[in-house]
């Protein structure tokens, strides 16, 4: 029996009084995601100050030690992302909250986390770019979330739309990362990070927490263990458990052997990851829908924009009688193409309001091109759409 020398409460979810009590709390979005992480069992935080994510980091510096966790301010975002890798393989759930320029710096670490199948959560509080851009809100990183890391490698990215969801989606992000052994991104905007809203925290017993499967639980011995084998999602032995796990970033066979390179091995390694996320993880629901029964037009949105989009939809239906339906993407990647096609039959126009010049509009177009007459982007740069602005664009050609 291996005697653990871990500090208390690291790796264990502590239901101690240090977590927020169930009930209503008034929180900033940046604070809410930290509380969600603690509930999910996250006990290691590494980060670097960057507007507009700094409040999350400061909240983490106060809260993580309170529950027996560890907080570190690293020398840069690259170091922060690497700390997440080390902490995850060391057995802990780990988090960082950054903004767009820091997110760019983390791409190499995300890349190796994908191929090594490392559970970890990165929250990107998006701000306009490129370059220093500005410090207001944007959704300009949503393509980078999927394609920013080098190499073929799928990823999961979620889009919260409220402070309540900053709490809930962070927990969901940890659950997905543990279940699918992958880094998970939470693509928030400065708006939702800086807002203060009411957050209802349910009784902790009612919240599902998922932890990574271990080879010990499946009766796999260290000699028989393949760090990337045994199942679609390989059980994960952590360092210090006697499994002699070699973490590698080269394309590899399931047992971690990197000497047997061949294009076939390379393809097998990549396709295994692709199927795990793009097929298996993509099969679970992630769309919030309303007014689809008889709609002639459609509003497809995500993140905080969906709140003003919903107001616009309600206003158009009431004042003009326009039969416009509403779909919110709770998860951006893997893109729920099949789910969208299953629920959209035949509409005239699909409107896609985004805080960029039209990014998610592209996979939406691929999915719904034959289900509609046209797809119209409603862009807003650096500021959240107002319902009036969305409506003016919707009414333009109707």
């Amino acid at each position, binding site marked *: 029996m291996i005697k653990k020398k871990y500090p208390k409460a690291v790796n264990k979810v502590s239901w101690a009084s240090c977590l927020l009590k169930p009930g209503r709390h008034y929180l900033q979005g940046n604070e809410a995601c930290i509380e969600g992480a603690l509930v999910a069992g996250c006990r290691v935080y590494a980060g670097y100050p960057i507007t507009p994510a700094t409040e999350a980091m400061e909240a983490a510096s106060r809260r993580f030690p309170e529950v027996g966790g560890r907080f570190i301010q690293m020398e840069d975002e690259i170091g922060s992302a690497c700390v997440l890798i080390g902490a995850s393989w060391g057995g802990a759930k780990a988090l960082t909250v950054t903004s767009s320029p820091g997110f760019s710096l983390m791409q190499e*670490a995300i890349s190796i986390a994908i191929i090594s199948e490392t559970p970890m959560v990165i929250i990107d509080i998006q701000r306009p770019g490129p370059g220093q851009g500005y410090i207001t809100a944007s959704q300009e990183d949503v393509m980078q979330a999927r394609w920013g890391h080098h190499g073929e490698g799928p990823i999961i990215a979620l889009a919260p739309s409220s402070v309540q969801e900053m709490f809930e989606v962070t927990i969901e992000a940890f659950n997905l990362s543990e279940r699918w052994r992958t880094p998970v991104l939470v693509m928030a905007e400065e708006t939702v990070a800086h807002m203060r809203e009411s957050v209802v925290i349910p009784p902790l017993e009612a919240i599902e927490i998922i932890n990574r499967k271990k080879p010990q639980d499946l009766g796999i011995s260290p000699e028989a263990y393949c760090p990337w084998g045994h199942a679609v999602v390989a059980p994960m032995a952590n360092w210090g458990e006697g499994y002699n796990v070699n973490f590698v970033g080269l394309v590899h066979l399931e047992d971690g052997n990197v000497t047997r390179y061949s294009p076939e091995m390379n393809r097998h390694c990549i396709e295994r990851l692709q199927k795990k996320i793009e097929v298996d993880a993509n099969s679970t629901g992630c769309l919030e829908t309303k007014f689809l029964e008889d709609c002639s037009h459609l509003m497809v949105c995500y993140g905080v924009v969906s709140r003003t989009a919903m107001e616009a939809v309600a206003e158009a239906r009431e004042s003009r009688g326009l039969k416009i339906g509403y779909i919110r993407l709770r998860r951006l990647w893997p893109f729920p193409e099949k789910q969208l096609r299953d629920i959209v039959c035949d509409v005239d126009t699909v409107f896609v309001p985004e805080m960029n010049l039209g990014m998610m509009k592209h996979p939406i177009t691929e999915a719904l091109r034959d289900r509609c007459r046209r797809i119209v982007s409603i862009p807003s740069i650096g500021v959240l759409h107002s319902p009036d602005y969305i409506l003016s664009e919707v009414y333009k050609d109707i």
Partner: protein
Amino acid sequence: MLKYLKAEGLMGSRLPTILCPGCGGGQVLNYTLQAVDRLIAKDDIRKEDFLFISGVGCSSRITSHYLNFDSAWTIHGRALAVATGALLANPAFRVIVFTGDGDLAAIGGNHFIHACRRNINVTILCMNNGLYGMTGGQLAPTTEKGVVTTTTPYGNPEKSFDLCKLSETAGAPYVARWTTAHPRQIVRSVMKGIRKKGTAFIEVLSQCPVHKKMSPVAMLKMLKENTIPIGNQSQSGEGKIPVGEFLDIEMPEWNDSYENIVKAARKEDCGLHE
């Protein structure tokens, strides 16, 4: 020492290593495993607690998938950041970082100085061959001025780092330099480093026979002759590189401060509980 290596995996053989004949990296691996073996026997340290972490390069390759230990072959220059994360999750790990002069002092320079500053509990073995071996012999921050490499065909116009001075200034409590021609000294230094709570920096001047176009035996002779142990009065040190233990002091280790923070934080009622 073969018991500490994975000669065969479930899906094929892994040894011999991809290192060139006579590479100093293989020797440093041998010396380190000797030290680890003695510590497991003498100090009763569990084999499960050892964790080898490396970045990218020939030196880092010895951690790739050969070791019959927990290990991590990570991204270029970031071994110390990953080590920081592992120690945050479990301060009981005995972390050994294998790195090269480019991996540590060029792309990894920032993490290097901050790891020393924090005094995290790692033993760093920097195999310094004065160039970038894996990619074909380019300039490194430790290449001497005037030396011709594949990216300095007209001679290196830049000065080089003194990695030991850098480490000491950054705050590491144990700093030593040896060459691959000093096997028993390296074994002793590694044992000291692992026993020490804090950052132990051990620079090993190491031969790259292929890019220096010399035989391994000739290079080992050259390393021995061009260095002089500090405190050696019998020969003139003119033009020779000093080797030895430059610094060996006790300093508070980084994780202890974090333990104290957690102890203090848990006592307070921060007012967010109601």
